[in-house]
């Protein structure tokens, strides 16, 4: 892949679930080392876009390329290059965290020395050292999330697809993950990061894409989004609510209390 080519390129992508349109004519481009935030209300198509990029879902129309590889045709190569954390990571609960990471490392082809070192390092960084021998079924949601993040990072991925990765994480681990994304970005790793926490998106993403009903509503840096919404100087939450056409939140609350 030439250096000028984007790391992720999505062109007129459409995904249907039966008669329901999950993604409609979505096009976007993420460059090397960029951290792209995906924002949108529940059911806007963020997770569907992530799953399509990692090859878990087949596009109904259009195409997506990761590092110049077609996600549908070259899915094996794409999967080798990508690290993915789903919105609700269902891990093998019958394994211990160490066994799970060992399995992932073996499938990814890591040698014994390398996998031992990396697993140990990650366990220490995310405060799971000493608990790696416990079955995953005994873990809290946050601990499972940490294991999923470690599994996604084990093989030095070139692309990270993180679907609400900070869900359930304690503040220290969330900070570690955010810093890690920054560092990896400097090393040229591109990240697509979906979140509902707008402050996090603003803090760590180079650019933000707002999706609604499977359509891209707006795209740009947080400053560009403010300008598009005609709300310079406002918080990203106000920008998001205006762009997604959410009616006055105060009215909704009053209706609920009635």
């Amino acid at each position, binding site marked *: 892949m030439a250096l000028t080519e984007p790391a992720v390129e999505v062109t007129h992508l459409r995904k249907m679930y039966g008669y329901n349109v999950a993604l409609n004519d979505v096009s976007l481009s993420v460059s090397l080392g960029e951290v792209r935030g995906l924002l949108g209300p529940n059911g806007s198509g963020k997770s569907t876009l992530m799953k399509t990029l990692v090859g*878990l879902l087949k596009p109904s129309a259009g195409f997506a390329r990761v590092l110049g590889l077609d996600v*549908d045709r070259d899915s094996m190569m794409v999967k*080798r290059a990508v690290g993915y954390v789903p919105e609700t990571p269902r891990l093998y*609960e019958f*394994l211990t965290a*160490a066994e799970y990471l*060992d399995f992932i490392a073996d*499938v990814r082809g890591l040698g014994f020395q390398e996998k031992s070192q990396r697993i140990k390092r990650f366990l220490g960084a995310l405060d799971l050292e000493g608990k*790696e021998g416990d079955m995953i*079924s005994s873990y809290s949601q946050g601990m499972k999330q940490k294991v999923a993040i470690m599994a996604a990072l084990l093989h030095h991925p070139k692309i990270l697809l993180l679907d609400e990765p900070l869900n359930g994480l304690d503040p220290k681990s969330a900070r570690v993950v955010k810093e890690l994304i920054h560092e990896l970005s400097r090393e040229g790793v591109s990240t697509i990061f979906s979140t509902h926490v707008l402050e996090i998106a603003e803090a760590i993403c180079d650019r933000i894409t707002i999706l609604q009903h499977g359509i891209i509503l707006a795209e740009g840096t947080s400053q560009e989004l403010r300008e598009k919404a005609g709300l310079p100087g406002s918080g990203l939450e106000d920008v998001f609510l205006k762009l997604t056409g959410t009616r006055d939140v105060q009215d909704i609350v009053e209706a609920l209390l009635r």
Partner: protein
Amino acid sequence: MISRLRSARRSFVPRGLTSRPLLIAVIGVILFVVSLLGGVATESFLKVIPNLDVQSLVVIIFGGIPLFFVGLLWELNASAESESADSVNWLPISPSEYVFASSLSTEYTYSPGLMIGLGFSLPIAIFTNNLPAYSVLVFLAIIASMTGSVGIEVLRSALARASSSFNRVGGRPVIVLRIVAIMLILVLTQLLFNGFIISNVIGSLVSGASSLSFVPIFWPTLAVTKALESDVVASGLFVILSLALFGGLSGLAVFMKKRFWVLPSTSIHLSGKGAITGPSRLGFLGMSQLSVALLRRELRSATRRKEVIRLIVLPLILPVMIGFPFFLTPASRPSGASSPPAVSAILGAPFLLGVGLGALVLAMTSMGQEGRTLWNLGALPLSAGRIVRAKLLFTSLITSIGLIAAAIVSSLLFSLSIYSSVLLLIIGFIVILAEASLGIAIGSRFPDFSEGPRPRFVTVTGSIIGTVLGFITLGLMVAPVVVAIVLASFGGSQAFVSVAIAASGAVGLAVAFVGYRLSIGPVEKILSDVST
């Protein structure tokens, strides 16, 4: 609430059926009428047999029904899971309400079985002038099945408590303990509720010399058999005892539900340093790091997941269970020198049936076992072929243990010659390959990824198609060899045996190859459209 429980609880009964109470009633009525006609036909048939002791048969049929229904419900639910995650547990429901609704739900779900028993025995009661005993039977059969369903509630609470202690323990001794425990439960239930044993038990009960009358689960049966003997006092006593048993178990079920409603945290918790594995010794056999990782994952899943353990036990225990009648019939056991080939062939067939069915069931459920964790495989650079081969290898490995155990047991018990034992093993391995490949082909086309207390892993349609095809394959492979060996024993050409074995092997390998090829496409499709 009953309806909700019935539709939420997973069993081999299709959900479409369990969620429609009216349909169960209609099926029950239809089965009652069909069984009634069957009873009329049986009675007419018995009449024409000279010197037949009809009354003894009536005792076995009438006495067997309550015994069967106490046992059947236990057997069906022997491996029932803890239901601590049932949504009803979070609702304001008292333990007694839960136990009442849950046991009534089980009772109603399996009521068509009761209708078969009662329909079949009605004409026999009429023609043998046993209507008063029949009325006792109707009452006791209902009490017996209610006792069985309440017993399940006791079992569920006890298993939930035991599971909470052992579930999170990963040590090898516990894994072995768990497998052995499930095998023992299966053998025990098979022993207790095997038709051959039931008739022997009833014979002992009727003879009056048995101490079995002190065993509570035989009380409903005794009430019926005493009624058949016109011993009203004894029958009445056992009716009262049966009701007391039902009442006692109900109380125990409510007590246990109250006690273990909210499960205590694990009482035993072994934890190690994890397991970062070095190069596997299997690498010397040409297996790659990736293949070893997949196989290791399958083994850990099979030995640590409660809902999967009962499946891996099947290939180990089925050969023995299906060959059961031979163990129990002394006449089939030749003494002294090696059995003649014909005997070996006939004895080997049930074992192969068990091995084949075990492989089939394990393989059919292997894709569905992935459940909601399927995304793990989908997001990794794994080809469909790799996954199919790993599942095939795992199924063959587990089933081969059952085959070898069955071959050793049958060789010792029936003094099989070395030739016969080797033949049994060779055909057995090919049967395993064929049935495992067929099973994966079916399981990947009809996977059931839904999870629950008793996940099915393969759809009902898939189970039916797979079982039919599995039996056809087994028949095509085993029958010609058995026939050729039997014919050879009666003076036929030995060449037929060789031809039959070669043909059987060719059929098995062809099915294995086709099954493997047919599995790739569906697995590819599953992996390319995964919902997380």
